[in-house]
């Protein structure tokens, strides 16, 4: 490793930075009046919703804004040198050696046609002109540092031969090859599964300490920033609105947006009925439609006309606190400790009879082993293994799991897009498990509907919103004629709280949250009784998530819908579900009421999941359970218990039973079942993962 001369001034100093993108029609300001300072060894978190300009700041630091982007004001100083004044040559020297960057998509940031070793070795060879052998030696060292197994083999493979988690570790290794002074991480874990994310975050933290690297950590996830950073800067619509140390900002916030953000995310203690989330009203302004004065003004509870919208607002120092600033005129007048005005508490819907029952459902696929050349040998993928549960009227059943756990397959079978290999699905005493959708009657089809994950994909881009809903009504035989259906469509728009004028809009004119609402309206077109919501809010911004979740809850209360809520986000699951089903590689590893699943005894996987989910609350103490390795492929599951390859409790079971036998389903309490070999005593001795520190 090259040793750098110690530098004790600020590593990165951004002052009044403004960045704009220029299109044919207009200049679009992406970042305005942004200042921040990163000291040696400090980790700075940059938080905001999509489109707030946080990634643009990072690219600005790298001086890599593309053809259309330009820095229109302010300066970026790295170790006292202005990056904007540097020649391309000087920049190339700094990039990769002094400043390194890690991106969101690990697969995309590695060259697919180059061996990993070569990509790593390139860095010291360019910057220090070291020999190939020396570079190789260093690459080996760094790959070991990022805790990858078998470094020599890793260096000799192509990116596609690695799993997502391994790829991200390689990207981190590449960034660390030159021992940079500043590491920029742009949503480094968003594309990864939660348990893998936890391990990567852990790694970044450790390495940051080990090498003494300063970090600029960009994320939309407040919990993640809490876990990794010392300081935080909250951005909204191109501006930094609040900046300070983690403790100050999390516990003594001085900006209404930060406050609203915290109130809209499900923290432990939030409850859908007693303490519902408070969504931020309105929408994120488009860059060219920003309001006068405070950008957050139109959505702010403390907005004062004539003052907040009068003119540009500067950052203000918060008195008495070091390096804590806010972009709010009224921060001194607002009573930040005022107790939350409870939005109306809602009465819990009465849980009714069993509507849906799955019994020993199995779904196996046969796939060709080699996709391209269609070789003869077929493999059986066991996507779902003996699934049994029931769901009742007005109940929310959460299905939790990471990629490859079989939750999508389960949804497909339920919807009738696939038929079950074995077992049965009963809807109101009618078996539907082996009836493909084309043979189901209209009523059944209308009863079971789905809300999809990706808002940008859920609506047909070439049809108006209204006509898509009307089409669903036609298919479900609702309404006698076009007029009646149109009327009903408008009512559905009312139901999902969208203006009626949206009926004639094209999907591209809608924001993500609005599209998701249309998706919900469409699902309820035939008065669906069971709705499968496949991660309906995971692709939405935090401030919108709450509103969409609330909407689902409200419709559920009104229509007594059974909601099957598929998610990997345990915070939101805890917030809204009545019962939880945890899946891993096609198996249901734990099933119980929300209280049962979130309290010990846990299944070891549930424990790891709970520990992995970052929580944006400084008062929460978490037990650290970091899982080794990646999720095995469903094509090639491990023998015995599916979780045994990563389980931290495995040595507590005698005789290597975990590797030999799939554990039986055990009933721990009324309605609480676990698939694990651990003895009752071991289970009973488990400690809770999340503790809320006594205040």
């Amino acid at each position, binding site marked *: 490793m090259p040793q750098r001369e110690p530098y004790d001034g600020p590593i990165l100093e951004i002052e009044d930075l403004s960045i704009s993108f220029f299109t044919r029609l207009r200049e679009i300001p992406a970042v305005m009046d942004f200042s921040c300072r990163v000291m040696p060894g400090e980790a700075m978190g940059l938080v905001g919703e999509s489109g707030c300009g946080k990634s643009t700041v990072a690219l600005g630091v*790298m001086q*890599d804004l593309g*053809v259309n982007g330009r820095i229109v004001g302010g300066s970026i100083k790295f170790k006292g040198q202005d990056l904007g004044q540097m020649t391309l040559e000087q920049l*190339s*020297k*700094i*990039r*990769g*050696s002094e400043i*390194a*960057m890690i*991106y969101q*998509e690990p697969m*995309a*940031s*590695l*060259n*697919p*046609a*180059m061996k990993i070793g070569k990509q790593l070795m*390139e*860095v010291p060879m*360019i*910057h220090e002109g070291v020999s190939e052998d020396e570079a190789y030696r260093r690459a080996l060292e760094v790959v070991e540092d990022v805790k990858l197994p078998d470094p020599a083999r890793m260096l000799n493979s*192509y990116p*596609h031969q690695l799993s997502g988690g391994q790829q991200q570790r390689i*990207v981190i290794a*590449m960034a660390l090859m030159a021992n940079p002074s500043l590491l920029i991480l742009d949503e480094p874990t968003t594309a990864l599964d939660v348990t893998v994310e936890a391990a990567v975050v852990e790694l970044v933290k450790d390495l940051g300490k080990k090498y003494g690297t300063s970090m600029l950590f960009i994320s939309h996830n407040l919990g993640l920033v809490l876990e990794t950073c010392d300081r935080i800067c909250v951005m909204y619509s191109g501006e930094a609105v609040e900046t300070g140390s983690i403790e100050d900002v999390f516990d003594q916030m001085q900006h209404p947006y930060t406050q609203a953000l915290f109130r809209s995310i499900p923290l432990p203690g939030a409850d859908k009925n007693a303490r519902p989330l408070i969504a931020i009203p309105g929408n994120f302004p488009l860059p060219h439609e920003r309001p006068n004065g405070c950008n957050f003004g139109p959505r702010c509870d403390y907005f004062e006309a004539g003052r907040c919208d009068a003119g540009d607002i500067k950052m203000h120092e918060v008195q008495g606190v070091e390096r804590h600033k806010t972009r709010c005129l009224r921060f001194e007048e607002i009573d930040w400790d005022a107790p939350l005005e409870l939005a109306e508490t809602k009465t819990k819907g009465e849980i009714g009879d069993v509507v849906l029952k799955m019994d020993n459902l199995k779904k196996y696929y046969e796939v060709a*082993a*080699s996709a*391209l*050349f269609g*070789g*003869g040998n077929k493999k059986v993928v066991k996507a779902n293994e003996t699934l049994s549960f029931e769901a009742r009227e007005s109940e929310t059943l959460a299905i939790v799991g990471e990629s490859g756990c079989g939750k999508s397959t389960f949804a497909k079978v339920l919807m009738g897009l696939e038929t079950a290999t074995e077992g049965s699905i009963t809807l109101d005493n009618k078996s539907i498990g082996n009836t493909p959708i084309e043979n189901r009657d209209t009523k059944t089809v209308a009863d079971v509907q789905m809300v999809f994950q990706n808002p940008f994909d859920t609506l047909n881009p070439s049809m108006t919103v209204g006509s898509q809903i009307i089409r669903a009504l036609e298919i479900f035989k609702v309404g006698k004629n076009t007029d009646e259906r149109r009327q009903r469509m408008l009512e559905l728009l009312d139901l999902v709280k969208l203006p009626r004028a949206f009926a004639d809009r094209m999907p591209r004119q809608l924001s993500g949250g609005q599209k998701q609402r249309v998706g919900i309206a469409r699902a309820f077109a035939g008065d669906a009784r069971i709705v499968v919501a496949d991660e309906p809010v995971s692709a939405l911004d935090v401030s919108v998530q709450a509103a969409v979740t609330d909407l689902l809850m409200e419709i559920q209360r009104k229509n007594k819908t059974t909601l099957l809520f598929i998610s990997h986000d345990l915070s939101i699951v805890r917030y809204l579900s009545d019962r939880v089903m945890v899946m891993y590689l096609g198996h249901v590893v734990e099933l119980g009421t929300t209280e049962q699943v979130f309290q010990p005894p846990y299944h070891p996987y549930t424990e790891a999941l709970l520990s992995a989910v970052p929580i944006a609350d400084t008062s929460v103490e978490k037990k650290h359970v970091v899982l080794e390795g990646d999720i095995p492929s469903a094509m090639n599951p491990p023998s015995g218990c599916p979780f045994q390859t990563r389980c931290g409790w495995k040595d507590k079971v005698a005789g290597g039973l975990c590797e030999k036998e799939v554990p039986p389903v055990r009933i721990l309490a009324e309605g609480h079942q676990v698939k694990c070999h651990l003895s009752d005593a071991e289970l009973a001795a488990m400690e809770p993962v999340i503790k809320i520190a006594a205040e």
Partner: protein
Amino acid sequence: MGLFILKRLGLMLLTMLCLTFIVFWLTNLDAKLETLAKTQGSARMTDTEVQQWIANNGYDGSMIGRYGQWLGIVPGWTKEVRGEERGRCLEQGMTFADAPTYCGILQGDFGYSTVLRDDVSTIIKTRLTLTGKLMFWVMIVMVPMALIVGVLAGMREGSRTDRSLSVFSIVTTATPEYVSGVLFIFAVSAFGIKWLKGSAASAMDGLTFANFTLPVLTMALYGMGYIARMTRASMTEVMTAQYIRTARLKGVSFGNIVMKHALRNALIAPFTVIMLQFPWLLTGVVIVETLFNYKGFGWTLVQGASNNDIELLLSCSIVAVLVVLVTQLISDIGYVFLNPRIRVS
């Protein structure tokens, strides 16, 4: 991998059978045979004479049967006409006794050309050699030029180099050989350029710069634009890829980004295109050879087609289809080798 190639070969064989049968069928329609009889015999033959001629030359009998004979899996026809022993497998003056039973392509007998009055295999061999020379030079000119133009244009999307090279490529794709050939010959004669010839007839005896430049250029230009555009598209896509940004932010210089990081990825798509270009070059060959009086494979094909020379056409189509299929196979295999993401397990 072995299995994959075997499968492909089987598929190729099936394709060949289907295609040659279609050619066989189209050339052996009754009306086509009558035309053949009239061109071979005399234009004034009566209908009975035509039928007689058809029967005497073995064109009667079922189409499938004759196709089998051509393949060499059905015994060749034999017939006694006015005391003379005639048959598919009989050379001049042979008798039934000393002629082989089967004589089709499986036996290596490609038949006899009725219009060029020679063995088809000899014709194909000489003509194909001539066209091979043409193709060789076309490839030598076209491929490097196309790749260079494409890479230069795609390297910096939207730059002035990109715009002008792109327009150039579009213009060349919009100019088919019969247009550019005409314009070239016109230019050569209009400007009195002595060191270029508007005819390639003399090139059959010896290639010179003067007699071969225009045909090669004519063909290369039309094909070039397409490959160049593909290369450009592929290059621009690669240059906006995240891993190029990674490389840039790693401090790799622009030249090295293009050469080491972008090029291999960017050439995967054009490689397939170049390979698939071959079959389509055949049309160009026919046009250019006609236009420049170069009697190669394309010229032979025109001769065969306009005189309904059945066996010559069949062999021509075998060659043409073989070229197509082999290049497709090469393109698939090459794709696998160029692209590490796809490997046969």
